[in-house]
C-alpha cells in the first residue's frame, strides 16, 4: 500500500505527517529540533529515507540535519558554507554596497539520481553543492559571480536563493531563483549562468524590464515538460515555454496576482496551483477567504478551490516553499500556512482538509510518495 510522508518545516521545529494511500488518517510526528527554526526539509528521490533539514535561527546559526531512516532519527552534518574567493558586495536595502555574508540555507534540492548529492540555496544568495551527503559543501560560484551580482538587492526576507530546479533530462541544466534578483539558468552544471528574465516586468524598478531586480517568489516545473516553467513573482504569475528564455503573464482572472507559492499537478503538466495573497502590503488572502486557485490550461483561466478551506476571517499567509504535491493517481496537493495549518487535498484540489491544525508557523512543505 502506498504511503505519503509530508515534511513540514516550521518556526519551531520540523514535523513529519504520514498516511497511507487513502490519505484520510494522518500521524503527526515531531517536533524534531523543537523550538528551533526549520527553514526547509526535503527528501531524496534516489533514497526516500534520506532527508535533509535546514535549521537556521538567530541563536545558533546554520545547522544541517540529515536523516537516513525517513525522519525518525537525525544526525548533524556539515554546516560550513564558505564563499569562494573574496565575495565582494551586493546592494543593501538602501542601495549601498554590502558585503556578501552567509546567513542560512533556504532550500535543499537533492539530486534525483544520487542520494549523496544535494544542492543548497542560501542567503546571501549563492548555490552550494555537496557530493558527500552533506558532510562538506562547495560553492558553485559562477552564479554569485555573475556580471550582475553587485546589483542584486535583498527582498524583505533577505537576499535569498530559494528555488532550485534540476532538469530531469539533463542534470547539467539547473534553474535558480533569487529574491530579489530574478531567475537564472545554467547549462553546465552550475559553472556558468545566464539571467532568464526577459518578459518579466516589475513596476517598482526604475527600469521595469531590467535584467535583474525582479522579486521572483517561486518557480515550478513539471518533469515531463521541463521546458515549461511557471513563476509566481512579486505581482504576476508568469509562464515560459522555452526554458526561461521568454516569459509571458498568465495571471488571467485571478482576484490578485500577488502570492508566494506555485506548483504543478503531478500528472498533468498544464494544471497549476497558486494561493493569491491580497497585496505586497497585506500578506493575507483577499476578503479573509483562503482560496487555492487552479488552472487546467497552464494559466490565464483560473478557478477558485474553496471546499474545506476557511472562507471568512482567515488572514494567514502561505510562504513560497510551503506547497507540494504527491504522485498518487489522484494527485494530492498540500500547503502549510503561517497560522500553523497544513491543508491537504486528495482529489487534486476539489476538496481540502486540515491534516494538522495547530503547528507553529509553517515555513515549508514537501511531500514524499512511497510505493
Amino acid at each position, binding site marked *: 500500500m502506498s504511503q505519503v510522508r509530508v515534511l513540514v518545516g516550521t518556526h519551531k521545529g520540523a514535523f513529519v505527517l504520514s498516511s497511507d494511500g487513502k490519505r484520510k488518517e494522518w500521524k503527526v510526528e515531531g517536533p524534531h529540533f523543537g523550538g528551533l527554526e526549520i527553514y526547509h526539509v526535503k527528501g531524496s528521490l534516489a533514497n526516500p529515507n534520506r532527508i535533509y533539514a535546514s535549521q537556521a535561527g*538567530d541563536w*545558533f546559526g546554520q545547522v544541517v540535519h540529515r536523516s537516513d531512516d525517513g525522519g525518525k532519527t537525525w544526525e*548533524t552534518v556539515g554546516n*560550513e558554507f*564558505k564563499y569562494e574567493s573574496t565575495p565582494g558586495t551586493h546592494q543593501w536595502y538602501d542601495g549601498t554596497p554590502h558585503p556578501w555574508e552567509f546567513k542560512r540555507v533556504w532550500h535543499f534540492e537533492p539530486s534525483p539520481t544520487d542520494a549523496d548529492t544535494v544542492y543548497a540555496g542560501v542567503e546571501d544568495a549563492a548555490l552550494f553543492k555537496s557530493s558527500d551527503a552533506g558532510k562538506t559543501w562547495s560553492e558553485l560560484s559562477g552564479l554569485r559571480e555573475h556580471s550582475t551580482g553587485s546589483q542584486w538587492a535583498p527582498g524583505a526576507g533577505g537576499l535569498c536563493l530559494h528555488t532550485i530546479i534540476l532538469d530531469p533530462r539533463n542534470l547539467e541544466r539547473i534553474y535558480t531563483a533569487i529574491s530579489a534578483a530574478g531567475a537564472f539558468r545554467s547549462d553546465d552544471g552550475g559553472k556558468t549562468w545566464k539571467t532568464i528574465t526577459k518578459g518579466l516586468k516589475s513596476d517598482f524598478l526604475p527600469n521595469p524590464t531590467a535584467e535583474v531586480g525582479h522579486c521572483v517568489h517561486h518557480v515550478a516545473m513539471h518533469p515531463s515538460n521541463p521546458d515549461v516553467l511557471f513563476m509566481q513573482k512579486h505581482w504576476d504569475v508568469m509562464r515560459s515555454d522555452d526554458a526561461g528564455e521568454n516569459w509571458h503573464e498568465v495571471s488571467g482572472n485571478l482576484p490578485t496576482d500577488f502570492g508566494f507559492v506555485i506548483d504543478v499537478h503531478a500528472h498533468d503538466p498544464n494544471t497549476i496551483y497558486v494561493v493569491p495573497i491580497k497585496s505586497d502590503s497585506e500578506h493575507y488572502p483577499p476578503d479573509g477567504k483562503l482560496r487555492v486557485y487552479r488552472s487546467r490550461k497552464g494559466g490565464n483561466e483560473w478557478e477558485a478551490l474553496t471546499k474545506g478551506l476557511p472562507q471568512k476571517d482567515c488572514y494567514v499567509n502561505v510562504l513560497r516553499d510551503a506547497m507540494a504535491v504527491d504522485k498518487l493517481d489522484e494527485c494530492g496537493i498540500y500547503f502549510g500556512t503561517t497560522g500553523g495549518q497544513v491543508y491537504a487535498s486528495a482529489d487534486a484540489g476539489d476538496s481540502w482538509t486540515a491534516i494538522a491544525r495547530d503547528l507553529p508557523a509553517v515555513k515549508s512543505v514537501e511531500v514524499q510518495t512511497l510505493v
Partner: protein
Amino acid sequence: MVRVKLPYHLQNLAHTSAEIQVEVHGAVTQRLVLDALEARYPMLRGTIRDQATGQRRAFLRFFACQEDLSHEPPDAALPAAVAEGREAFMIVGAIAGG
C-alpha cells in the same frame, strides 16, 4: 579539565548534559576552550562562533565567576577558577523569543 555549561538547545545538539568537561592545553582562554569544545563536539561548530569571522554569535553570551566575559578578548586568560575547574565557563543563550 575545564567545565563548560551549555544552553538547552546545544545540549540536545551535542547529546550531552548541561555541563561537560573539556581538556585545554596551555593557557585557558575563551578561544582555546571553544576550540576544545568544538573538537570534541564537531556538531557545535558554527553554533557558538560564526564560522566565517570567529566572532561570538550575537544571541549568546559568556559568563564565569558571576562576571560577563562576552566582550573580553578571546585570547585573554579566563579566571583561574575556570582554568582550575572550580567554576564553569558558561555559554548562555538569549532567554527571549524561544
